[in-house]
């Protein structure tokens, strides 16, 4: 059974036509299901969790990345399959998962290519994409067996699923997260960036003062200590062929 939940911004008149087209296509494909509309004064997480408790086997987030993040949090440890119909042109998750924006996403949903993907957890908060923070004199303790000391200012990222770049490709199905540390050094020949990279299953990040840790490019956690771990194969996601892993 498919259960769709629409984000609040879709109630705006400018999305009326897009939503109508979406519903028509879903009906044509025979995958229309129960629709729940999130509202300003209703706890979105609770609404989605209620749907899961009522037996929804496939939850579909209709909205933007914030909607999808809510769904990831709500799905938690259940084996519910999660789909995504992005309605915003700027969607990092849609690009990573190979899902086009708008009506075209219905075909991806219908093809139902389900993949088991790792999720990360930071101080009890789940994430799919990455964590990012700027820290100085940070210490990272990995797997309870070794520590990394990073003197000076550094940009620290913990990735599960990310776009390929100079730090390589991250595989969200390998049961590990990647710690990426970038430091800038100045010399006579100009600025040079140093890159460290380390795959891990569990790590603690300690900083000398409170820092903002950005979770999946959105919400920020403020703390001096972060407990981070990979949870292998926990999320069952519907992905497209154009996914970045």
């Amino acid at each position, binding site marked *: 059974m498919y259960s769709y939940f629409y984000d609040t911004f879709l109630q705006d008149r400018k999305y009326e036509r897009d939503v109508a087209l979406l519903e028509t296509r879903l009906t044509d494909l025979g995958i229309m299901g129960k629709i729940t509309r999130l509202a300003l004064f209703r706890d979105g997480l609770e609404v989605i969790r209620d749907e899961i408790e009522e037996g929804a086997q496939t939850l579909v987030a209709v909205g933007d990345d914030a909607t999808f993040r809510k769904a990831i949090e709500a799905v938690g440890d259940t084996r519910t399959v999660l789909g995504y119909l992005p309605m915003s042109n700027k969607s990092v998750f849609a690009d990573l998962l190979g899902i086009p924006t708008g009506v075209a996403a219905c075909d991806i949903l219908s093809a139902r290519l389900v993949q088991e993907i790792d999720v990360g957890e930071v101080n009890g908060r789940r994430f799919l994409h990455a964590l990012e923070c700027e820290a100085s004199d940070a210490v990272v303790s990995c*797997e309870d*067996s*070794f*520590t*990394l000391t*990073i*003197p000076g200012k550094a940009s620290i990222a913990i990735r599960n699923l990310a776009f390929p770049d100079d730090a390589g*490709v991250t595989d969200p199905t390998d049961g590990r997260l990647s710690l990426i540390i970038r*430091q800038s050094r100045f010399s006579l020949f100009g600025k040079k960036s140093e890159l460290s990279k*380390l795959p891990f299953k569990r790590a603690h990040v300690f900083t000398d003062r409170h820092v903002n840790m950005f979770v999946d490019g959105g919400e920020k956690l403020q703390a001096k200590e972060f407990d981070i771990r990979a949870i292998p194969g926990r999320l069952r996601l519907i992905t497209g062929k154009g996914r970045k892993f």
Partner: protein
Amino acid sequence: MAKNGGGETIVARGVRVEGDFVVEGNIVIEGEVHGTINATGDLQIGPEAKVDADIRAENAVIAGEVHGNMRINAKLDMLPSSKFSGDLAAEILSIGAGAQINGTIRMGVEEPVKPARGKRAAAVVAEEEAE
């Protein structure tokens, strides 16, 4: 050197690692490491790196400074800038002109030089001996 895609570990200049450093895949060290290094893949130590550790790896290319015992299952390449003190064992050894080695060298690797210092590293050695 074997390649394993995104599984590579890099310790950049300025970063210091302490403890039992267990790595699945290849590792490149440009910074400092103190303790033990156990890599299932290949090891590369850069010219500015400082390593004070017992090392086990498949292949290795050393350009920096290493203190400790080293056991390389296949080929060890000591570049001209390398400085090594300790005992080393390798199947194939290549030493560049100017490389400094102080310690014993064993070729053929019938038995380990010495068990690594860390708990995890010692456990890995014990497991292999049991096999």
